[in-house]
């Protein structure tokens, strides 16, 4: 609608020429709702109630007399109440565009007083004190203008005298020294740790080297042992072989010895024994034969002697018959031999084996003996022909000498 004016929430509608007035104001203030504005008769203007800001840059001196270049931002608005709107409208309605500048200039003086009531430390640290000072320094002044200061923000403090730097210096130095000390300590510790680590590393390396050497030695030992094992076992095997061969050789030697014993010595021994036995037997035989011969001869000699003695006795006694018998007996073997010679020429079949022969022989001998007995009385020998006592007298013609081994003249050989 053309004559129906509605202010925005951040605007105040100022209607002049209206009969209805707010309090004793010369104009009507409308906020939050619309109203009719009569053309020609009434005039409506709009005052913005929105937030504005003013930048202030000012050289200020603090409570301690220190010069600071302060750059601040003041955030303000026209107050929402009737009084403030009226005051502001009266002052700024036609200069709304330059309102920030105007307010900023006004506020710069206030900023000086605000900063002048504070120390640097308070400005830096105590927001509450700063706000109090802002209130204290600017509230009544701003209220005259119908302005409410929402905030004063100090954006920058230029430290022209170096006060803040100096203020910070001890702390900075302390902090720096602390930092350096910490750094040094850390370096020291790091170095210590590094050295310790290096020492430990060296120690471990040494241990490792020792262990490695030990293992290497063990390995070498094992290798050597393994390398030796072959030759050693070979040597052992060859030793065993040699032992076996030795045993075999011994066995062979013993076998040879046994064989020698069996084949050579025993037979030799046997032969020797045989020979010895034979020799002994021969010797014994010879001895016995000699003994027998000696005995025989002795006996013969004895018999001869006895015979001669008897002969001598009989000769002395005149025992002629006995002498003749004696001669016959002496000749008996010859007789028997001649009988045997007679038999040998005959074709005689002998039955009944050896017994037959014996019978014949005994018969012959019996006959001979019978003949001998028959002859006995007929024998008469002259005494002149008696054999000498030593048995070397003349023997009958047909007496064959009995062969005697090794017989010479057997008499007196005992």
């Amino acid at each position, binding site marked *: 609608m053309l004559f129906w004016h509605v202010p925005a929430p951040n605007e105040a509608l100022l209607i002049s020429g209206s009969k209805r007035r707010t309090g004793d104001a010369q104009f*009507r203030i409308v906020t939050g709702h619309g109203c009719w504005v009569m053309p020609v008769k009434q005039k409506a203007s709009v005052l913005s109630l929105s937030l504005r800001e003013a930048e202030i840059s000012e050289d200020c001196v603090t409570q301690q007399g220190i010069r600071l270049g302060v750059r601040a931002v003041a955030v303000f608005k026209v107050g929402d*109440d009737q009084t403030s709107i009226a005051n502001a409208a009266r002052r700024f309605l036609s200069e709304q565009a330059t309102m920030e500048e105007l307010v900023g200039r006004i506020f710069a003086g206030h900023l000086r007083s605000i900063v002048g009531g504070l120390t640097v430390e308070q400005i830096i640290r105590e927001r509450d004190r700063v706000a*109090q000072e802002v209130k204290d320094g600017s509230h009544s002044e701003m209220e005259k203008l119908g302005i409410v200061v929402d905030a004063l923000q100090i954006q920058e403090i230029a430290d022209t005298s170096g006060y803040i730097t100096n203020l910070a210096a001890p702390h900075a130095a302390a902090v720096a020294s602390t930092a350096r000390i910490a750094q040094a300590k850390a370096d020291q510790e790091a170095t210590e740790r590094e050295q310790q680590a290096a020492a430990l590393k060296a120690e471990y390396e040494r241990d490792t080297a020792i262990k490695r050497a030990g293992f290497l030695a063990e390995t070498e030992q094992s290798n050597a042992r393994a390398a030796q094992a072959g030759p050693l076992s070979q040597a052992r095997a060859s030793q065993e072989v040699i032992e076996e061969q030795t045993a075999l050789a011994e066995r062979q030697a013993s076998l040879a010895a046994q064989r020698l014993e069996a084949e050579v010595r025993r037979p030799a021994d046997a032969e020797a024994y045989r020979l010895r036995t034979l020799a002994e037997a021969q010797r014994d035989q010879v001895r016995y034969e000699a003994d027998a011969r000696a005995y025989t001869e002795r006996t013969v000699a004895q018999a001869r002697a006895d015979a001669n003695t008897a002969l001598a006795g009989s000769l002395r006694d005149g025992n002629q018959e006995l002498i003749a018998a004696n001669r016959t007996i002496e000749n008996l073997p010859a007789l028997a031999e001649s009988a045997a010679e007679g038999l040998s020429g005959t074709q005689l079949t002998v039955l009944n084996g050896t017994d037959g022969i014996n019978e014949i022989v005994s018969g012959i001998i019996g006959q001979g003996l019978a003949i001998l007995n028959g002859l006995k009385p007929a024998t008469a020998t002259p005494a002149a022909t008696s054999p000498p006592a030593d048995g070397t007298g003349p023997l009958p013609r047909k007496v064959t000498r009995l062969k005697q081994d090794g017989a010479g003249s057997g008499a007196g050989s005992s």
Partner: protein
Amino acid sequence: MSATDETDFSPIGVIGRVTVSIPADGPGEVLLPVRGGTEAFAAWSHEPIARHTQVIVVDHTSARSVIVAPLPA
């Protein structure tokens, strides 16, 4: 709706909160619920009042200035 509401608005009896501590000799600031929002008023008091303390407005000296007292617990 009517302009008298706005004109005759009085913050007396309103309970607010101190946003800038009130010293004994100077103004602090209180935030009061006014006209559906909250507005900051310069506040004086007979005794220093710390920040964030609940206060009650006992008087107002101008459009944007009030006298407050600590809210009895």
